Every structure is written in structure tokens, then in C-alpha cells.
């Protein structure tokens, strides 16, 4: 096995393109998973079981099926129903939705961890339910769960290569394309491997620092 620096140099422009796509997918997927997960968590708290039952079933279903299957489903089956999105959009939605079923559990734990006395104080002050959630409960719950949400961002980062399966050219997609065109596998795959470490490791250090600051 020979290491060829010129292959690295040739791959780099493609790498940057792939990195941009990976980071886009990660950022948008994270936002979707944070927002939708919160909606799931709040819906699961409504008194009506006609809301909780369908939400519970849908999210359980999404959580219990592989992301790859969901990607294929959204990419190949939805167009048959007349719904066509770009590959990247499909990927972002799939990954965001998939992870929302995990972040909802994180939010649930965070909400449960807010002491019951906070709810009682809000009742004693006659705060309306909406205000109690927005001003009292969620700020405390979310503060507690930031590190756990961050862990899912790192997990999501490592799942972004699956988008390659629906033709998205993320880092792995670019590396594979380059390898097939130039018959050089070692260099591009090594570069993206190092790139994943360079993103994940500082991110997990940042999370640990956040955890020390926020979870007291």
C-alpha cells in the first residue's frame, strides 16, 4: 500500500464540497430533530389519548425502523405518490425525523426532571399553562438536556454517510466517487475518516464542558 500525497491534493476540492454537504445535512437535520422532537414530547403530554396514541405509535415506528430503510422509502416511494424532493432535502428530512424520535425521549426526561414544586409554584401564581411551559418548565428542562441533545448531534454526524445511499454527495459520497474514478481508495477514505474525528472529538469535548456548566 502506497500513500500518495498528490491523490490527497487532488481529492481536497471534492472533500470540501462533501464537507459542506455533510455539515448542511447535520445542521438542518439537528434543527429538525430538536424542533420536531420537542413537538412530539409536548404532544405526548396532552391529556387527550386521541393525540398521545397516534403520536406514540408513529414515533415508536420511526424509532424501531432503520434510518436506511426510511431514506429509501422517502426517496423512492414518495415520488410515486407525486411528492418529489431533492436528494439532500429528502436526506435532511429523514435524518431529522428519525432523530426527533430520540430527542423526544431526551426532552421527556428533562421535563420529568423539573421538580414538581415548580409546577405548584406556577399554579399558585395562576400562571396559564402555556406560560408555565414557556417561561418556567421548558427553560429548565432544556438547560438540563443540552448535553444529551449534543450527543445525538454527534451520532447524527456519523449517520450522514447513509445519505450516500440516496445519491447525496456528502463526504463519503465524494470519497467513493473520487476512488472509483481514480482507483485510489486509501487517501480519500483516510481524509474523511480524519475529518470525522476532527469534528466529533472537539464537539464531544465541548459537550463535556457544557455539561459541567449547565447540569448542576
Amino acid at each position, binding site marked *: 500500500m502506497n500513500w500518495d500525497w498528490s491523490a490527497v491534493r487532488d481529492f481536497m476540492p471534492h472533500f470540501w464540497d462533501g464537507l459542506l454537504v455533510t455539515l448542511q445535512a447535520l445542521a438542518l437535520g439537528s434543527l429538525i430533530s430538536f424542533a420536531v422532537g420537542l413537538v412530539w414530547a409536548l404532544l405526548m403530554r396532552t391529556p387527550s389519548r386521541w393525540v398521545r396514541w397516534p403520536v406514540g405509535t408513529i414515533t415508536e415506528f420511526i424509532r424501531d425502523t432503520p434510518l436506511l430503510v426510511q431514506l429509501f422509502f422517502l426517496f423512492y416511494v414518495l415520488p410515486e405518490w407525486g411528492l418529489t424532493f431533492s436528494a439532500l432535502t429528502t436526506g435532511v428530512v429523514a435524518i431529522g425525523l428519525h432523530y426527533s424520535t430520540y430527542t423526544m425521549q431526551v426532552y421527556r426526561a428533562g421535563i420529568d426532571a423539573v421538580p414538581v414544586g*415548580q409546577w405548584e409554584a406556577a*399554579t399558585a401564581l395562576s400562571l396559564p399553562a402555556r406560560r408555565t411551559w414557556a417561561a418556567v418548565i421548558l427553560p429548565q428542562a432544556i438547560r438540563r438536556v443540552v448535553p444529551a441533545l449534543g450527543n445525538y448531534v454527534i451520532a447524527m454526524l456519523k449517520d450522514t454517510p447513509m445519505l450516500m445511499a440516496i445519491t447525496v454527495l456528502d463526504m463519503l459520497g465524494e470519497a467513493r466517487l473520487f476512488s472509483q474514478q481514480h482507483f485510489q481508495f486509501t487517501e480519500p477514505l483516510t481524509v474523511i475518516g480524519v475529518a470525522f474525528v476532527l469534528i466529533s472529538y472537539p464537539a464531544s469535548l465541548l459537550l463535556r464542558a457544557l455539561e459541567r456548566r449547565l447540569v448542576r
Partner: protein
Amino acid sequence: MSADTPLMKEPDAHANPPAATGELIRLEKVTKRFGDHTVLDRLDFSVDAGKHVTLIGPSGSGKTTILRMLMTLTKPDEGTITVAGQQLYPAPEKQVREIRKNIGMVFQQFNLFPNMKVLRNITEAPVTVLGLSKDEAEQRARELLDLVGLSDHLDKYPTQLSGGQQQRVAIARALAMRPQVLLLDEVTSALDPELVAGVLDVLRDIARTTDITMLCVTHEMNFARDISDRILMFDSGHVIEAGSPEKIFSEPEQARTREFLSAVL
């Protein structure tokens, strides 16, 4: 702190209706069970407007449960609760919400909102619930913080305060809603002994200078003697003896009351 603090008596467009005279709170045949355990058994009692009533008795005798039912934190299993002539239980949710605005509570564990600074802990409900402007609410909060001796701390978070200071903020927060009724649930039980006096002094001041009806659960018998118009002695879900502090503390009729008082005094 001056005795002529105008805080509670000042007429104000946002103040709750003037305190009624006569009977303000009435519980009739109120029963509360937790599982097989009957905490309150067909309890009857009433409190007149402006009076300070203290509930004493051994732990588990249902004193706190009464305060929690009045604050609508828990519901009775049977019976009726009336506040200012309006039924609080059983009642439709809208009516409960209206009555609840006239009732405030201070908790054993303070229950300040840790994500808000002291000032906003106090202004949050007056702005959101009573519709005060931010300026009006802050003005009111500053006066109340002055009353509880914490004017210098309005920009701090609750965790930066001692337990005694937190509890005084919680008292100010409850008063900011100008409640007709103030419920005090063992407000000094979670405090270090040297911080108790400061909190009780604030409450003595409020009892003396306002016409708020106070319902108090405490193990501080000297405090109970100082502020109370009436003392109710609870045991096993019943009021076994009621009377003025002088009567209860000097010449209790019931053996159970004597036994309890000799244990706590």
C-alpha cells in the same frame, strides 16, 4: 421596614376586590384519602376575612393537605370548599381559575423559579396574569423587596441567595399578586436555624400591617402564638381543639393537645 407600609392597602386598578368581611373560607365535610389512608375525615371549618389562623398538630394529620386543597394543588374526595362566597370545589375550571387569583402560597421548599432573576420571579405573574405593565410590576416588586429587606438582591438568581433570603423572595412573590388569602406551608422548616428569625419577622410585619387572611401551618409555636387569632389543633384528620392562642397554649382542654404541645415547646 415601617409599620405604615402602604403596599397592601393602596387602592389600585389592578388590585383584587377589597377583602370581604365575615366568613372568607369555608370547608364543609371535606374528606381526603391517599389510597387506604384517610387524611381528612369530613372536616368542617371556616376562616373569617382578615384573620390569621394557624394549624398545628403532628405530621401527617392533614394540615398541609388543607392548604394544598385551597391552592387547588390537590382535590378533596368529598365535600365542598367555598372562598369568598364562591365555590372552589366542586367547580368548573374557569371559576377555579378566577378564585385562585385571590389566593397565594408560600412553600416549604420556596419553589422560586431558578431560571429567573429575583425581580422577574416577582414580576412574572403580575404581568402575565394581572396584566400589569412591566414598569408597574417592577415598581411593585421593588416595594415588596424593600418590605422583605432584599432591595439589594433583585438582580441575583435564586441560587445566589441563602435559604432565608429565597424564602423572603417567595413571600414577596406571593404578595405581588395582592392575594386576599396567603397560605404558609411550614415556611421555615427547610431553613437553617439562624435564618428562621428573619423570615418570621417579615411575616409578623405582614400580619400586623395588612388585612390579608393568613392560613398557616407551622411548628414554630412562638410565631403561632404571636400572629394567630385562632389556633386549630389537628389530629388524625380532625380538628380536636380550636381557640385563641392564649387558650390553646395556656389551658388546652384535650389531653392530646397537651401531649403535642409538651413535645414541641
